[in-house]
């Protein structure tokens, strides 16, 4: 496994070969394994080990990157030469920031521990035992199970010729389960750096219950419904807006936040932070330049407050006519590895729940709904219109009619066309935020939501 000393040695080798003014090295990789099952059978079962060394060279405002997965001297020498060759032929970019100094990296004492033996030591046999338990629950319910049980143990290091060193190790365990009946399905997914937090059998029981309860789905007319979105559905929707919270996106005028920062855009009950150190979050506490990720208040009580910035973007924004309209401009440590066109993005989203005592469980949201739809999961969400943030997609794997405060059976799946802005203006109730995982967006800490007037435009035939 990669450790800090090994990373330092690799960096020294790279530095020996470099003729550039400055050099930065990103070393990352580890072990990853995934056991995949369908039709109550493990049908794919994989493991890999791979590390990359990605070298960025800088010659007076000109930069490029070269990446190899070979660490012998000849391969590293070639990678350095490639990066330097591509750097040299460019025109200097006055906006390119010099490499970050060591003072910008997070301190070890400020870095959350996200490496757990429980996940690092998971074996194929452990995962197979977990799958066996899931399949047994499927069989007990006359269902078939499909899904994954994965684990990883990885590390990431960024070092540069200014003396910056940033290092992070992390594990992960993840289970995703679809239970299939003759005409229905149910789904659950969860991951954590700590495998002990992942409960395959509990997830399987919930997925099985959803598949059974949604059997014999009926079709109801599309239209505007009150919906109760479970956390996975919430994150897959709201995930489409966070790349727009990049300072670079606003400078490029491709963000839906252009001309909207400082204004009330969402309901008063919407408050969103980016916080890599939140107890339910995961990931490295530094960005693609090794700079410490700072917590950022993105939205407070419906008002868009701040954007996130890589170092170069912050400088550009300060010089821009937009500077006075975009809240606080500062280096927040959200940059992607350079060079890139996108700048940065918040990747550790925490959507706050209601004030203490006001959170509602999904069951309570159902109980307070005269007629609506409970949505387990969404699928194939795409942006239809970028400024109003109109999204389309489908419901999937557990869509229920709610009538008179109770689940009234499964529904055939809907297509929605819904503005995300309008949706976040129409949130009537929320649960406690939880760590959630979907398929369209990165993992987040979000609550379930009850939303009025959600726009379903079509219903499919199953």
């Amino acid at each position, binding site marked *: 496994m990669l450790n800090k000393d090994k990373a330092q040695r690799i960096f020294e080798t790279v530095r020996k070969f470099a003729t550039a003014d400055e050099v930065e090295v990103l070393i990352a990789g580890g072990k990853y*394994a995934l*056991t*995949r*099952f*369908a*039709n109550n*059978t*493990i*049908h*794919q*079962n*994989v*493991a*890999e*080990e*791979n*590390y990359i060394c990605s070298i960025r060279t800088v010659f007076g405002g000109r930069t*490029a*990157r*070269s*990446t*190899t997965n*070979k660490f012998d001297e000849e391969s590293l020498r070639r990678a350095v030469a490639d990066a330097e*060759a*591509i750097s040299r*032929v460019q025109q200097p970019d006055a906006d390119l920031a010099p490499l970050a100094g060591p003072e910008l990296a997070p301190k070890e004492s400020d870095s959350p521990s996200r490496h757990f033996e429980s996940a690092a030591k998971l*074996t*194929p046999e452990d*995962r197979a*035992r977990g*799958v066996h338990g899931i399949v047994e629950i499927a069989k007990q319910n006359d269902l078939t199970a*499909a899904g*994954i049980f994965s684990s990883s143990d990885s590390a990431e290091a960024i070092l540069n010729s200014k003396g910056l060193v940033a290092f992070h190790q992390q594990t992960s365990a993840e289970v*995703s389960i*679809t239970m299939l009946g003759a005409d229905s399905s149910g*789904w659950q997914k969860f991951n954590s750096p700590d495998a002990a937090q992942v409960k395959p059998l509990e997830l399987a029981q919930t997925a099985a219950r959803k598949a059974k309860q949604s059997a014999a789905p009926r079709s109801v007319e599309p239209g505007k419904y009150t919906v109760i979105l479970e956390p996975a559905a919430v994150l897959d929707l709201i995930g489409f807006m966070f790349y727009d919270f990049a300072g670079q996106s606003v400078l*490029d*005028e*491709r963000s839906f936040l252009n001309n909207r920062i400082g204004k009330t855009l969402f309901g008063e009950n919407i408050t969103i932070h980016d916080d890599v150190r939140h107890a339910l979050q995961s990931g490295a506490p530094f960005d693609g330049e090794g700079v410490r990720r700072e917590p950022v208040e993105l939205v407070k009580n419906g008002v868009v407050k701040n954007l996130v910035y890589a170092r170069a973007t912050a400088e550009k924004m300060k010089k821009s006519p937009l500077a006075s309209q975009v809240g606080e401009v500062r280096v927040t440590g959200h940059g992607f590895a350079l*060079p*890139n*066109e996108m700048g940065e993005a918040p990747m550790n989203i925490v959507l706050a729940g209601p004030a203490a005592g006001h959170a509602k469980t999904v069951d309570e949201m159902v109980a307070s709904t005269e007629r609506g739809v409970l949505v387990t999961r969404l*699928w*194939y*969400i*795409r942006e*239809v219109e*970028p*400024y109003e943030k*109109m999204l*389309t*997609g*489908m419901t*999937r794997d557990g869509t229920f009619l709610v009538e008179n405060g109770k689940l009234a059976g499964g529904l055939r*799946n809907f*297509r929605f*066309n819904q503005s995300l802005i309008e949706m976040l203006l129409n949130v009537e109730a929320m649960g406690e935020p939880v760590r959630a995982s979907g398929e369209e967006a990165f993992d987040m800490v979000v609550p379930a939501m009850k939303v009025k007037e959600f*726009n379903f*435009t079509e219903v*499919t035939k199953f």
Partner: protein
Amino acid sequence: MPMKEIASWALNTAKSRGASFCDLRIVDERNRSLATKNGKVGHASAAETLGIGIRVIAEGAWGFAATDDMTRGSIERTAAQAVAIARSSATVKQYDVKLAAERPAVADWSGPCAINPFGTSVEDNIALLLAVDKELTSVKGVTLAEANLSFRRYEQWFYSSEGADIHQVRTTTGAGFAAYSFHGTEIQKRSFPNSFGGQFQNKGYELIGELKLVENARRIGEEAVALHSAPQCPQGVGTIVLDSSQLGLQIHESVGHPIELDRVLGMEANFAGTSFLTLDKLRKLKYGTELVNVVADATPAHGPGLGTFAYDDEGVAAQCTPIISNGLFTGYLSSRDTAAMIGQERSGGTMRAEGWSRLPIIRMTNVSILPGEKPLTFEDLVRDTDDGLYMQTNRSWSIDDKRYNFQFGCEIGWEIKGGKLGRMVKNPSYSGITTEFWNSMDAICSRDQWTLWGTPNCGKGQPMQTMGTGHGAAPARFRNVEIGSAYKGS
């Protein structure tokens, strides 16, 4: 070290550990990626990766392990690990894996590459992108210009315990650009020659000259700006004509994915989904009108598509499988194990992996609609259309997990009135049910209008793999289509 000797370390270890079958791929991959944004280099990188992926069957179950460490000790450990993984798979199974028979091939093949893209200078590459950028940003109202260029060389050695020994080299080139215009409360975008980064084919730098990027940049920029003044796409039921790139994506989503046999058999149920094309529908379902003829063709004769190769990643020779024949559903995309499951004698040869570290899975090859047999230009097609909408270049795409209900948005639309192209419309979209849609196609242009598009970003599998697929298409007309669906209720 000869690759065959490296392979023997894995094959011998797998056999000695009790594997009944083993195949492996050694992959040496090289990439260059360049992009410009508003007059500056946005992204400039090179990458290389080398490793081995070893797949085995033991106790009737699959195992796979991959490593970047090409030393003998590592490869033997990895082969042993694959067998151990297979044994753990065998503890949760309802059936034993069986493979459709395949004669082991010994072959050496390289795809077309007239001009080695890695032999072109980065300086020239960037100069081309900046020339495109200059044209785009010269248009008043264009607020963001992006252009990109990418090259990939993919060299693979495949060996199996059955005796296969196949060496293949594929070179992929891609390029494109996009113009954005932000005005008022609207962001409009035009891309060329397609969205998703442009056009990609398995050929060399010669593709770049064929695309005529600089020549089209100003027009595309002007269209992006003009969209702000265009009327909104109407809502209702009517006739649409799709350009070949949009039809290519329509094929990808509503034909290519549902014919994947692993989906049909439930193996993708947790992520990519299943398929409405259950086994009872083979050679019975009327998928489309008689004009609808679709093939899955991986053979070089089909063209330099992203799904073109000589042998798939199970060592099965490239084939042309009829998928829809005169409207009738006639074939699936299959692998050696899924072919055996449905009693098919031979795999259709569609297994591919993203790289050395990933397991091969069923992927679209070049799933293409064949052009019309009668001469029909795009101008002829418009002339033959009294009232309709012409839609170009995908902007949004979504389809349900059985691949039945879809909705697409395009970047730009044009009214067709009395056989002529009329006003531009913005935000065009349409939706439908897969089989109803293909049964509404009443015209398709002929061969001279047909383009083999490359879709570089098809995601499937767990862990997710991104794969390039090919889709040949010509402009086509569809009747009684739900138009403007994306804006219903808003």
